[in-house]
């Protein structure tokens, strides 16, 4: 359940993959992109240790996704823009050329690598961890950070409030009727009351926070320290060096 990436500081997981993403974004080399995709996939499976369900979805989903992109982008490609126009597959009047498939494959691998690199942090980091790390190390004002933390508690409240608003609307016969149009109109009617109740709640919460002296002192103590350790630096440097190491390895 606990891969080593979960213990890494969120900031390392944020800034580590960024140059790699830029490298993936800029490269056109099919083999380099494939190496980045495969490498990140292995890192995710080993480092994040997601449940077998997520692992299976990753292992099966990545090749399927790349294949779908390769075919769909290959079909969209302007036939005049590619050199190799030998037909691989034909769907009636639409033909999938070999050159189009190559462009599609590069796009598919690039998107897969980008998504997997983003998932390195997505699968192993929670919102509160990230907020605490940025308050403690990025000099984000703690009042802003703790406002973000407090607003996370709003979500379950939104669910309850939505039930109340839905019942109230039903009792008053607001936007009745059947079908998708009436349903969409009903859903649209929930937006303003839900936001208004959220803002009202925000005012009450801010009063109660300030009555407990929130924001009275320039600094504050932390209940959950998120330290920057040596291993965070190692992870960061490992990601950064991969930008050069992977293309170099692929090209021998």
């Amino acid at each position, binding site marked *: 359940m606990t891969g080593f990436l979960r213990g890494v500081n*969120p900031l390392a*997981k*944020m800034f580590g993959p*960024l140059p790699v*993403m830029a490298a993936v*974004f800029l490269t056109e080399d099919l083999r380099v992109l494939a190496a980045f995709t495969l490498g990140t996939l292995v890192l995710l499976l080993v480092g994040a240790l997601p449940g077998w369900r997520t692992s299976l979805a990753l292992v099966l989903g990545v090749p399927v*996704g790349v294949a*779908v*992109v390769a075919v*769909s*982008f290959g079909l*969209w*490609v*302007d036939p005049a*823009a*590619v050199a190799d126009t030998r037909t691989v597959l034909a769907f009636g009047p639409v033909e999938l050329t070999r050159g189009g498939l190559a*462009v599609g494959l*590069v*796009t598919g691998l690039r*998107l897969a690598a980008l*998504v997997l690199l*983003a998932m*390195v*942090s*997505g*699968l192993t*980091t929670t*919102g509160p961890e*990230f*907020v605490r790390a940025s308050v403690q190390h990025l000099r984000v004002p703690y*009042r*802003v950070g703790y*406002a*973000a933390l*407090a*607003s*996370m508690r*709003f*979500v379950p409240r*939104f669910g309850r409030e939505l039930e109340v608003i839905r019942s109230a609307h039903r009792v008053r016969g607001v936007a009745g009727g059947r079908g998708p149009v009436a349903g969409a109109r009903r859903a649209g009617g929930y*937006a*303003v009351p*839900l*936001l*208004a109740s*959220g*803002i*009202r*709640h*925000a*005012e*009450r*919460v*801010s*009063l109660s*926070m*300030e*009555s407990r002296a*929130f*924001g009275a002192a320039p600094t504050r103590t932390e209940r959950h320290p998120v330290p920057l350790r040596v291993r965070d630096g190692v992870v960061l440097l490992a990601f950064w060096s991969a930008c050069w190491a992977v293309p170099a390895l692929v090209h021998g």
Partner: protein
Amino acid sequence: MSTPETTPTTAPGTTPDAAATPAARRPRPLTTRYLMTCGAIGAATGVLLIPVNLVAFGALAAAPTLVAALVGFWLVGGVIALALLQRPGAALITSVISGIFAIPTPAGLTAVLTMAMVGVALELGFAVTLYRVWSPWLFYVSTAVIAAVYLTMVFPAYEMGSASTLAQVMFVLTLFVSMVGAAWLGLLLARRLAATGVTRGLAPVRRPAATTATTTTAP
């Protein structure tokens, strides 16, 4: 909610009559009520970002035009906050908070960076006009500019340069409609929210507000 007795506790510098006292000469820009209001809008729009991001990453594979249709959701929160609160930083704080909600999606922590960029981009138009213009046209111009800049970023990413002309036109049109439509939706929601009175004492009243009347143009 916002009775005169409560305002000294929440926001020493925000009430018009408090501006006369020396203590309010330097109003605290980030009052807790302002931050939590941004937080509430960010939470509401951030929860929406989770399914939007999941659908977008699923659709990334087959239909980039669908992704272009969904990008408007990134802007709505910032537009609501900016139009409703009419204060510097509202779009940035709201957008970043809504990005934090989108961390458990395939976007991961890049969602926060993306939303921070969206927030800064939304703020730019208002910063250039020194936060004096809050008319709807500036929202529309801002989002159109953001759409144009975003277009130059994603066009190469989706290999759109080598796509057929029809696909290119559809992509560009969808992107612009989605983003400018988000500005329209955000302004509409902000107007309705201002009418409920929940931001009384928080949003300034002296300016011709984008939230009170669409016809007002000049101060």
